């Protein structure tokens, strides 16, 4: 009896795929609403980087699940793993760069900061990255 030849019932797979894609789409909508509603660049970054990566993760799971057989799901997971890993690696990177530049640029709402630990080092040399 070979595990890799098991087939999951079509109705189960279809329902799971629809639900995962729907949740992913709603998370995309959440990110877009946050982008429009929130006040300054760091707040918008907060909305932009988190829900959408989770939505992409769910949609990648749906891609793998939609291959139906167990061997197909394993192969699909191997194929979508680079996408999710790259997104996990690069979303904080770009958010960090944009957030730092927003701080130096003054495009943040300074009154909303509780503690400004970088106030002393605000005069960084221009070539500091």
């Amino acid at each position: 009896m070979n595990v890799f030849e098991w087939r999951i019932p079509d109705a189960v797979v279809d329902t799971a795929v629809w639900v995962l894609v729907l949740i992913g789409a709603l998370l995309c909508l959440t990110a877009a609403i946050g982008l429009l509603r929130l006040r300054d660049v760091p707040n918008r970054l907060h909305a932009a980087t988190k829900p959408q990566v989770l939505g992409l993760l769910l949609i990648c799971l749906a891609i793998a699940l939609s291959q139906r057989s167990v061997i197909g799901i394993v192969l699909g997971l191997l194929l979508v793993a680079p996408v999710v890993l790259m997104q996990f690696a690069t979303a904080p990177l770009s958010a960090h760069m944009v957030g730092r530049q927003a701080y130096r640029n003054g495009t943040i709402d300074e009154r909303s900061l509780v503690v400004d630990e970088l106030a002393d080092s605000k005069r960084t040399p221009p070539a500091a990255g």
Partner: protein
Amino acid sequence: MNPLLLVIMVVFAVAAILAVVRIVIGPSILDRAVAADVLLTEVMCVLGADMAINHHTRTLPVLIVVAAVGVFGSISVARYVARRDNTPS
């Protein structure tokens, strides 16, 4: 057409329109960079949803390439943006 498919399409469309609205109204270039990043990730989500719903994997290379190079947009904008751009805050 499956009503759930219609709902998913409308949700994706509204999300894309909201991101484009943020790109248009700015106000600073960093806001536009963040919104463009969101729009790009949403394009990836739409490609993935298409693959999952229609049971194919033809656009998976596109997804991988977009995931790999999409980050350079906002990083380079953040790196080379002027120290203080001339926008009223």
